[in-house]
């Protein structure tokens, strides 16, 4: 009786594992996540392709799960850096641009009203290196600066570091870590004197959070559509879906949908910038 039960259990598992998996796995950046989730909802209803999305771990997790084939698509909100290429040397990444966006330095509305309006890149560098620790020096109230740094794996962090340090090496300084954009935004709102890197789209949606303009050699640049497209705003970035293997038809449908008018509308609804044919 005991053996028969075990035998039937074994058979059951064998049958289950032989079926090919139908759904598409997508892992990666929480910036790109909402677009793909919305697209998945629409595709699920009419094309009956089920897409599984997970944003745990950010862009780096997207690339690593693509390399380990635990996902078919990686979502990254940064360029594929040399270091990534070196790290995943055996994997050939093909990027599919689905939109563009920018990273902005964000503070709570209360702090903004108290006088902190913009920062220069050098000031940003000193904040990051904990040389400036009080808002008083930047025209704000006497409040300790609390830098909420994006988790090391996140695309937003790499764009921020590339803009501030360019090709130079990045000093390893430990900061308070925040994971997804949603968490960064909620923590900045609740922490007096907090500042963090956040995607512009997320910042504009929520009145409780204010975007700081970046003044580069004296000229104040606000991250609006024009400055991002023309790359004048230093922390502009593209949003990619990355694949490592030739796409099967389910995956092609998803990509075509994202490039279609409806797909790009979703990108715009979330505050990101559409893909213009000319700025491929």
């Amino acid at each position, binding site marked *: 009786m*005991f*053996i028969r039960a*075990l035998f039937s259990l074994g058979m059951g598992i064998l049958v289950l594992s032989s079926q090919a998996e139908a759904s598409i796995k997508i892992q990666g950046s929480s910036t790109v996540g909402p677009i793909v989730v919305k697209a998945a909802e629409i595709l699920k209803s009419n094309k009956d392709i089920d897409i599984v999305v997970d944003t*745990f*771990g*950010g862009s*780096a*997790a997207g690339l*690593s*799960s693509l*390399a*380990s084939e635990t996902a078919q698509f990686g979502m990254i909100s940064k360029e594929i850096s040399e270091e990534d290429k070196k*790290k*995943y040397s055996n994997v050939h990444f093909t990027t599919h641009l689905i939109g563009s966006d920018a990273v902005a330095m964000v503070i709570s509305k209360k702090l903004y009203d108290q006088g902190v309006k913009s920062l220069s890149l050098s000031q940003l560098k000193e904040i990051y290196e904990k040389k400036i620790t009080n808002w008083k020096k930047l025209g704000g109230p006497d409040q*300790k600066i*609390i830098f909420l740094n994006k*988790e*090391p*794996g996140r695309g937003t962090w790499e764009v921020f570091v590339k803009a501030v340090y360019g090709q130079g090496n*990045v000093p*390893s300084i*430990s*900061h*308070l*870590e925040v*994971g997804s954009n949603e968490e960064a935004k909620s*923590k900045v709102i*609740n*922490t*007096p*004197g*907090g500042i963090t890197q956040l995607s512009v789209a997320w910042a504009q949606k929520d009145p409780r959070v204010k975007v700081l303009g970046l003044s580069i050699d004296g000229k104040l640049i606000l991250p609006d559509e024009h400055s991002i497209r023309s790359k004048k705003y230093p922390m502009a970035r593209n949003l990619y879906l990355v694949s490592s293997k030739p796409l099967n038809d389910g995956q092609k449908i998803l990509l075509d949908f994202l490039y279609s008018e409806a797909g790009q509308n979703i990108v715009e609804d979330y505050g990101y910038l559409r893909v213009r044919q000319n700025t491929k």
Partner: protein
Amino acid sequence: MAISGFAKTQNSEIFYLFRDGRFKVSATRLMSIAIVGFVTLISLSAFIFLIWKSSDALMREGLSFFSTANWHFRDHSYGALALFLGTVVTAVFSLLICAPFSLFGAWALQNLRSEKLRLSIEALVTLMASVPSVVYGLLGILLLRPALLQTFSFYGMETGGGLLTASILLSIMILPTLFSLQLESFSKLSKKYQEQALSLGLSRTKFFWSIVFPLGLPAILSSFALGFGRAAGETVAVFLVIGRLDNKLPTEGGWIDYLLNAGQSITTKLGGPEIFISYQSPQHESALLLLALCLVLMSIGTSSLLLTISKGKV
């Protein structure tokens, strides 16, 4: 097979009977030994895998893994002192906060008059044990953090999260475990000695400090060991409230600032995204595995401590 010298009138059935005397290996016994062997083998090989994989991190880092606090996996430097300190400090502090509550609470409950009230309070505390840790994390992040931020912001608490918040949350989580273990040992001891002690004219408090506490010490210590093991191994709730700041040591801003502000523990590091990121870089992965090994050794150490102590008197 003839049985000689046997009563003549036996019929054939008796012979049939004795024929099946040969040794028959029971299927259940084989199956159980196989399964138990398989599971033990799996856990042993997992442990050996852990040791083998983390050994090269130990070789490479050597003692600096334990003595320095510069965990920057980008620059391949893995000093994990801050992580060890974080785990130990949160676990010890949670025990310190929780000990009076569980100890004196259990003793007060033991002296309650009405049986009904006693059982219902005990059941209530046991119910707390079955609340999942993620719900405690939720309570921590939504209620405890803002509350502590208001009260301690004067003393330099920047964000609500930190080692103190984590310790308070952990002490709430391990309270039921400690409470019920200590209650069990108190009820056993007082059932045995209470009548005699009170008839000698001792007051309840004297009875507690002179008999129940000393005799119950092994049980109390073993419950602390269990509580420590559990607090050190807790991940999700601590991950939500500890603030996740790497390489923070009390030497920089003093113990007050260290406790009030964010830090990092082994479990929150293991629970973070680094496991995903470490997929392709063996160095990073083996450093994380060394962390996991130390955590396992710590909790198995405390639970074997529990075994030896509880074998003592309880």
